[in-house]
């Protein structure tokens, strides 16, 4: 892993590949574009400063996500203790919006809103697992690392979330749609 040995070009390419994911994740957690932007800047500068101490990295993506998550949670925790004094509670919580949902049939646009609502009703940790797995396309090992929990816990959280999603009647409609889609695709 050359990137952390002092070469800003390589560091730039990491920024190029990871920026969108890190920015979106920070935005989900902080719910403020300026703060998300600042958080990613701070993360990259901080990792650069510590690059010698960090040494070669095997898993770049999980490392950056882990560091970002910790940084943001610390920030929120600190903010929370300040806001408690003036009676405001932050909600460090992932929220999905309908525009982020892709349903495989354009006619079912209203489904996006329903799915978003359904997802947002999940408990926080389940939401984060779903987000990292399906949105950031991480595998369970990576998620375990980022969230600082056991591999088995990630599996359990995912299963619980999926079970809850499937039990909603909406999902039966969706699964039918997906089946139709798959069938159409195999015909082509």
């Amino acid at each position: 892993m050359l990137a952390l040995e002092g070469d800003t070009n390589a560091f730039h390419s990491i920024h190029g590949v990871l920026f969108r994911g890190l920015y979106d994740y920070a935005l989900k957690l902080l719910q403020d574009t300026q703060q998300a932007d600042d958080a990613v800047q701070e993360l990259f500068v901080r990792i650069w400063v510590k690059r010698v101490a960090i040494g070669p990295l095997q898993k770049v993506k999980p490392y950056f996500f882990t560091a970002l998550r910790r940084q943001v949670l610390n920030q929120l925790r600190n903010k929370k203790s300040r806001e408690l004094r003036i009676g405001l509670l932050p909600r460090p919580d992932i929220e999905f919006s309908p525009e982020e949902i892709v349903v495989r049939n354009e006619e079912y646009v209203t489904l996006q809103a329903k799915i978003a609502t359904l997802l947002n009703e999940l408990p926080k940790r389940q939401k984060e697992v779903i987000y990292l797995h399906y949105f950031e396309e991480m595998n369970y090992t990576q998620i375990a690392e980022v969230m600082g929990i056991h591999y088995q816990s990630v599996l359990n959280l995912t299963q619980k979330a999926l079970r809850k999603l499937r039990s909603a009647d909406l999902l039966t409609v969706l699964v039918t749609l997906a089946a139709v889609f798959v069938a159409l695709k195999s015909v082509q």
Partner: protein
Amino acid sequence: MDEFSTNRNDRQGLPFGFRRKPLDERVQEENWAAVENGIRQTAATPAGMTEVAPVRAIRGRWVLKVVSAAAAIAALVIGIWWVSTRTGHPEEMAVIKTGYGEIKNILLPDSSVVVLNANSSLRMSSSWTETGGRQVWLEGEAYFQVQKKASTARKFVVHTKEVDVEVLGTRFNVNTRRQRAIVSLEEGKVRLSMNGIVTAVMEKKAGLVMRPGQVAEVDEDLQAKVNEDKDVSTRSGWSRHEFHFDHTSLGEIAHLVQDTYGYEMVVEDSSMLEKQISDAGGVRVSDVKDLVKVLMVASGYNMQIREKKIYVTGH
């Protein structure tokens, strides 16, 4: 490249997919530019200072945990401080705004006076008390008369997008319209700090100290230009409802009218914008109609106001 590989094929389980909301490419570019800037700033500090203990991704000996926690807290404190001084937290802020053509006089808790020009906003912490730090955030233009305080610990700071003005007791005007900040100092001393990433954190001590009679202009790229102006007090003329034109082009006046009253100037011929206008020692006007009357006489052009537009035609 395997560390970047994704698991696109591992999508079973959900009958729908996710996509990212569109994001302007510039966000990413500007973010990298800021990171690079930050890296350059840190390169100047000795390596031994910055290399803290490794913060391992997960699990480490407790010593490492303690050290990394300390490092994380340090980074966090700097981060929070930096974020709060740069952007502030809107939920804790008191905001005073002016509309077009409106000027407000504000008396701050420390008896400092701020005259807020039209179409501007001044934010300050609602918990600002006699004992707290004296900080305000400005968009637009304002004139400050800051009370001197014996204790240097209670500095008065005006934050704008481009520059922070740290006041050492004084009278000055700050104009942040049109993507740059112009600070005009009448009396006393102020120090400017440009608002780059990390610059604000690491080079707070540095910055530009201004003397009375100086005008500093800081543009979007945080480049500062300092000029002397023997009539520096005319820069705050607006706070006394006065306009001063000294070979000022009609184009510049059009910007002024737009920023102050929200009226757009429409000229028949773009060469008219070059027309230079001077007045003898300043004009006092109460509203945009008054100003237009003065401009008609001074320029020799005909001007008509219709629906928030000023139409300028030849003789």
